[in-house]
């Protein structure tokens, strides 16, 4: 019996935690990954696209990689080299790209996958929401083909790049707002959950000990990613982006609430804040499944399990 597969597009700005999110996504048997699309964020578009190609090669993901917009819809680009290094994915050596970059843009690639798919498509967007926002604006006829947009971004309680705004949303608040009002099902992993998704050094030593080539790279990504986080006072690595994958696959280990969420576009201190109507004050219907908590131990178990699926792979 063949399992009915769930078509998936991975959109991101890798980035260490994007990369680990994709390691997890590629390990999920029911996922049929159709394309990888890139967006400027953690580093410039050229760098994250090269990183995406190298991650695809590492994971033997023989799917098109399409380049997205080099800048947000209307803002200046912000990047995060302090977290991810000059390459955007500093740390371990990675295989060179196995295939070239698609001639289609990320938006056209997403549209093509949506158009050609019989099943509704899940978009996992772990960077700024620029490509997805542009897709919704320019291909409104394809909205119904989207199963859910699962994002890492925002935070109902707090931000990280400003006190009120999280990095991915702050980079392109307008794109996030376009998702909020699109009517497409949204699932949001904000800092509320991702800052609880802490992986401690002893956890990633278990991953390293698996010994397979992917697990080794993942452990070394953790080593690098943790350098800046530990300077900020974190005792482990906050694994933001994999939440957007695992909350789809194992929702039972997450605390998920239906809220009306809207991204603030103005404000002196709150631009890019994802504002949630927790008390139902606005009278607006919930537009978002907001993931606000998780069972950390089980999260780590699933992460290790995902890395274990690469056992038996040869070192390249």
């Amino acid at each position, binding site marked *: 019996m063949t399992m009915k597969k769930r078509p998936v597009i991975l959109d991101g700005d890798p980035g260490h935690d994007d990369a680990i999110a994709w390691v997890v996504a590629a390990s999920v048997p029911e996922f049929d990954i159709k394309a990888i699309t890139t967006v400027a964020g953690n580093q410039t578009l050229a760098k994250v696209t090269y990183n995406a190609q190298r991650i695809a090669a590492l994971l033997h993901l023989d799917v098109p990689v399409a380049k997205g917009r080099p800048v947000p819809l209307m803002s200046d680009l912000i990047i995060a080299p302090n977290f991810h290094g000059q390459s955007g994915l500093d740390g371990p050596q990675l295989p060179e790209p196995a295939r070239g970059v698609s001639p289609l843009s990320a938006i056209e690639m997403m549209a093509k996958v949506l158009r050609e798919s019989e099943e509704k498509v899940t978009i996992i967007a772990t960077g700024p929401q620029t490509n997805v926002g542009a897709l919704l604006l320019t291909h409104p006829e394809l909205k119904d083909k989207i199963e859910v947009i699962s994002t890492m971004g925002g935070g109902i*309680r707090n931000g*990280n790049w*400003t*006190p*009120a705004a999280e990095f991915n949303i702050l980079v392109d608040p307008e794109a996030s707002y376009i998702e909020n009002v699109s009517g497409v099902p949204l699932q949001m992993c904000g800092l509320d959950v991702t800052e609880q998704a802490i992986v401690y050094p002893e956890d990633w030593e278990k991953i390293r000990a698996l010994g397979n080539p992917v697990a080794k790279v993942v452990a070394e990504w953790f080593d690098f990613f943790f350098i800046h986080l530990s300077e900020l006072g974190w005792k482990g690595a906050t694994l933001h982006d994999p939440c957007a994958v695992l909350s789809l696959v194992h929702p039972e280990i997450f605390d998920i609430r239906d809220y009306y969420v809207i991204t*603030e576009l*103005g*404000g002196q201190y*709150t631009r890019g804040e994802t504002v949630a109507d927790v008390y139902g004050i606005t009278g607006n219907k919930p537009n978002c499944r907001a993931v606000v908590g998780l069972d950390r131990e089980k999260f780590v178990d699933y992460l290790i399990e995902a890395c274990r699926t690469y056992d038996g792979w040869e070192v390249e």
Partner: protein
Amino acid sequence: MERIPVWIDTDCGVDDALALLCAFQLPELEITGLSATAGNVTLENTYRNTRDIAALAGRKDIPVYKGAEKPWIAAPRTSEYVHGTDGLGGAKIAHSDAPETEGHAWDALYSKAKELNGELRIVAVGPLTDIANTIIKYPDFPDYVKELCIMGGVLAGPGNTNMTAEFNIMGDPHAAACVFKSGIRIVMFGLDVTLQTYLTKEEVDVISNTGNDVCRLIGEATAKTMALYKTLGLGEIMCMHDSCPVLYLAHPEFFSGKECCVRVETGGEHGLGKTVSDLYSDAKFGDKNTLAMLKVDREAVVKLVTDIYQSY
């Protein structure tokens, strides 16, 4: 025992009345002046209520000044549905026959602060218009304020006015923004802690059944608010929002919090009146202007306020 000199600025409402009735009777505090600002109800009502509550407590000697009639810029907002049209939930109370005090709240507050040469503590439990007016009129005012203890804002939860703003800050967001940038040392009692500082219906009953006039008033005044809370599904409780800063001055050990920086949003589509803190965020504003209270020993509060109200 040397008493701590305190000024209270209030938009006297129901929970303000509970706070004032604590303040007058705490042996640690000396209430040196009162001012009324618009907020829970109109200035006319808050001014009358402040005077009447002082008279009920036998403190007609404390001057009560009129403050701002409306916020700086934002549209005036009141909350009669919580506090009743009169602001005291329709409770019967005798009107004060004390002579009225001349002058603006901000002038009197500044004079008192200067007179006490840096020892004055201020409790502000309504919109911050009067405090901000004092700051803008008297640039050296912040130097004379030991501590400004406010009930207002919220750091880690939703607002109770719009999605993110608490009522007192939303009452005058621009004035609040001015206060939080003034350099005054702020001790903030936001919804984070004030929603934990409540009396149950049974605890209110113990007080209101005591038999003195103050306790009788508390029973009458709180009935409407508690009924509303019950309707909203929050339980039949009376939140002692405004009592928190008063109790803190006498008993700081009841509360615990963290130092952080708070700014007030005055722009944006959804953010007006949000108290944006850097408490939980990697990004910091730079300075620390606020001790944000986060936890309370509720049992200790209940015991103390019951004793206080019964002692009238």
